[in-house]
């Protein structure tokens, strides 16, 4: 394992400490209300009205499609990164290969735009 990864790991640990530390400090500093945990106070906010039903509900497939598109385009990007770093060695054939790769994907993009699959409602 490269040493840089260890440094990055310990950086993340320090970052976590920021959040945890803040919550710990707040635990000491914060006021304890007399009516802590009272039914009125812990009710979910919904503009002062009693909430109707829970917020945990079913969602529509269009959200799913956006995530799917993200994954597809990210996979594309992930394949392009190794290409990007060796582009100079590859020369023209490498460029052509990538252009073909991207154009095929953009066909899919064009289809999606035509069918308005990415329209957010």
């Amino acid at each position, binding site marked *: 394992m490269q040493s840089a990864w260890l440094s990055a790991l310990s950086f993340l640990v320090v970052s976590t400490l920021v959040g945890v530390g803040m919550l710990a400090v707040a635990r000491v500093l914060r006021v304890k209300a007399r009516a802590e945990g009272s039914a009125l106070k812990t009710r979910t906010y919904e503009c002062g009205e009693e909430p109707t039903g829970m917020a945990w509900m079913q969602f529509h497939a269009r959200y*799913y499609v956006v995530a799917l598109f993200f*994954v597809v385009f990210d996979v594309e990007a*992930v394949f392009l*990164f190794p290409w990007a770093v060796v582009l100079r060695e*590859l020369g023209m054939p490498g460029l052509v290969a990538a252009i073909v790769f*991207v154009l095929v994907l953009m066909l*899919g993009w064009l289809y999606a735009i035509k069918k308005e699959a990415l329209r957010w409602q």
Partner: protein
Amino acid sequence: MTASVGFGFMAACTLVSAIFVVRSKNLIRAALWLGATLLLTAALYAMLDASFLAGVQVLLYVGGISTLLIFGVMMTRKHEGLVVEAETVNVPRGVFAAGALFGGVAAAIKMTPELDSGVRPPVVTANDLGRGLLIDHVLAFEVVSLLLLVAIIGAVVIARKRDPGAEVPGFVRRPLAAKASSAKPVANEVSP
């Protein structure tokens, strides 16, 4: 030595979070635990000097696939107000299947002499991957794009399945991004 202890610890963490994925009653939590498992797998990759793969694992799997799964879970319910519950059934059979798979893979590893030679494998960088993809396996590289194209088309088909409120009497779907010019002209002759 420290490295293998660290690796063992990470592997154990991965395993524990994986168990949480299957044992978790709440599907959303299961999906989040899956995210944690995938993240820890990325850490394992990083420990094995596969930096690029580790980055890709986080970017695609934790960022993308778990989001996809969360959305998928959010889509699965029919009734408002119910926490998604999932029950683990057939535990013995599951354990048996997992054990069999583990045994098979372990045996395969054991039987492959190169994997057990104790020699550290070469570090594969993104540059090596790039050369491999675009010089040795160009065709595979191009086929991947076709695969992704199929994925996009599939996604579009899913999305087009239903237009909410399409055939409800009295409900009119307005064009969301209508321009003012396409707005309905209005009465002018009525003036008191």
